[in-house]
């Protein structure tokens, strides 16, 4: 029984970590990391340190979700849809399964819309969904147009070169539209959007997105350039084989040391299982200083992060306005299409 649980949790942990480090989709890597942590927490609970295990789960589910959020803001294709087309090693392919390469994705999307049309005719209950997906598709088209227009605005010289590529860059532009939208929306949350709501009435979403495109237009442009200039889109550094050898060597060395070293004295006596009481007394007594220090560190961390992120800390964003406008309810997405 115990061995079964141990095997399960170990599998979860190791596979999660492997997947985290090898998958092409950053979102997935975040989720895999969370899975790995939950596995570690299971091991903790198996070691009758259940409080720590639950603590770990709590901290890392919340933390991981926020981390993924940031990650999606940063990376150019969080879903890994663009990577999925590339050649990968077998393990990467394993953990990236289910991410379809870009081109299939396109017609896949169309087919999806088509059959949804049929379904929509058949079932009126579907209309809402159909409308949603439909307009999300259109949305991406819109994003695409924005992007193209953006390019032609920003670097008119570049845009002609871009046009042919937009065919297969479309997916990425969808990614962009989506991402830009998300970015805008998250920005609305952490009050750091670039003049979002400069015209803060009903098509504020639209304008927000447009500004978003405008704001990030340059780096999307750079992205196109770099990609055209043959930038390696890979997520790994050139030092990757070395890294693999190093990691392997470290684990082997550690295990070797473990086997080479004489066993530790195992204590089999009884011990109190009232973890909260024990930990509380220790934290309030013996480790008071460390406890206070950790608390102070957390406080400093919070304040530091807030200070770094406070609106207007970046020269080119009118974060203040975004902060004010984001207090209002966003308008329906379906309205900003008109």
């Amino acid at each position, binding site marked *: 029984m115990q061995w079964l649980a141990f095997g399960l949790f170990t599998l979860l942990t190791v596979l999660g970590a492997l997947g985290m480090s090898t998958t092409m*989709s950053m*979102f*997935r890597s975040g*989720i895999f990391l*969370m899975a790995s942590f939950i596995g570690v927490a299971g091991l903790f609970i198996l070691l009758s340190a*259940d*409080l720590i295990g*639950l*603590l770990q*789960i*709590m901290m890392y*589910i*919340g933390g991981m*979700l*926020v981390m*993924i*959020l940031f990650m999606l803001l940063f990376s150019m294709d969080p*879903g890994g*849809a663009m990577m999925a087309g590339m050649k990968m090693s077998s393990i990467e392919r394993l953990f990236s*399964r*289910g991410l379809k390469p870009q081109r299939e*994705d396109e017609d*896949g*999307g169309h*087919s*999806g*819309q088509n*059959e*949804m049309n049929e*379904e929509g005719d058949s*079932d009126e*209950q*579907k209309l*809402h*969904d159909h409308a*949603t*997906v439909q307009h*999300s*598709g259109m*949305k991406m088209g819109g994003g695409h147009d924005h992007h193209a227009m953006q390019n032609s605005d920003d670097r008119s010289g570049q845009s002609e070169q871009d046009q042919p590529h937009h065919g297969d860059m479309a997916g990425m532009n969808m990614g962009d539209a*989506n991402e830009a*939208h*998300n970015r805008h*929306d*998250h920005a*609305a*949350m952490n*009050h750091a959007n670039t003049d979002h709501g400069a015209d803060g009435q009903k098509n504020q979403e639209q304008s927000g997105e447009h500004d978003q495109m405008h704001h990030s237009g340059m780096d999307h442009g750079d992205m196109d350039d770099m990609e055209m200039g043959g930038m390696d889109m890979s997520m790994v550094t050139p030092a990757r084989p070395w890294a693999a050898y190093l990691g392997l060597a470290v684990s082997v060395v550690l295990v070797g040391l473990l086997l080479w070293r004489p066993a530790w004295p195992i204590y089999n006596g009884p011990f109190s*299982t*009232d*973890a*909260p009481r024990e930990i509380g007394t220790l934290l309030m007594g013996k480790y008071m200083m460390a406890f206070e220090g950790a608390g102070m560190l957390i406080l400093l961390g919070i304040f530091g992060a807030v200070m770094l992120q406070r609106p207007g800390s970046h020269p080119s964003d009118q974060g203040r306005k975004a902060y004010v406008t*984001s*207090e*209002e*309810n*966003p*308008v*329906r*997405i379906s309205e900003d299409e008109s």
Partner: protein
Amino acid sequence: MGIIGGALFTLLTLMVGAALTFFLERTLTPAVGAAQSLKLSKDLQLAHADRWMYPAGPVSALFGVTVAAAVLPFGPSLIGADLGIGAFYFIVVVDFVVLGVALGGWGAGTRDAVEGFYRITAQLVSYVVPLGLAYVGALMMAASLSTTQIVQAQRDVWFIVLQPLGFILYLVTGLMQAYRAPFYEPFSEHLGGGMLSVIGDWKALALRIAMAGLLFVVSAMGAVLYLGGWLGPWLPPPVWMLLKTFALMALMLWLGRRFQPLSTAQMLSLAWRILIPTGLLNVLIVGGLILAGVGPQ
């Protein structure tokens, strides 16, 4: 009862509770937030769905609710698993629901669903701390983390009498945690219902059971923390527990409908500007009460 019995009992309570919750909610509130239509739609083939994450969402949500229901005591011994750290465990595993909705939202890949993913994460950030503070008051008085002992500690007086502030705090944060009005931003109609709009057959079923069960377990935990759980005259304990749970649920829903829905940013500012200071104040008051000898000894 052994592990099997506990599991069965937990599933039973969850199903019953979820069903009752569902109908109560439909009677109390119009179709907003998580209370969607009864008809389950066929599964759509989504263009940008992530083949692994999308199904993982509802499963994780259901899992979270189920394991959370395991520590709800319906009687002195009528409990799925009487953990020593039950309340903390409850806080933790309810997060799996958030995780599930987030996974489903991202996995669905449509814009509304991804919206929902972002908002639900931000809502998690906003409610986690005040929720913990709302628990702390009761835990301090009960001097234990085990749900049964928390209930036992309210044998002579309920904690709602001793710490009304904490109870109000729990009402608000419980609504936030359960994604009911006025805190249903991730599923609100201007997101087209978030992922609820696209999710299909069995996933939709699992998700709705999870959402209904979420409200159920949250209000049950509220009853345990502040309304003295199963304690009560004449009636058998489980009945008391259910009564209290649904009374609390009705109160929460009824109150929630009285307010204008909040956006995530508003939730964040509400939580960090008002709820957290309130919670700290409540913790101070409870500490004072304990020092004064009021409450269970």
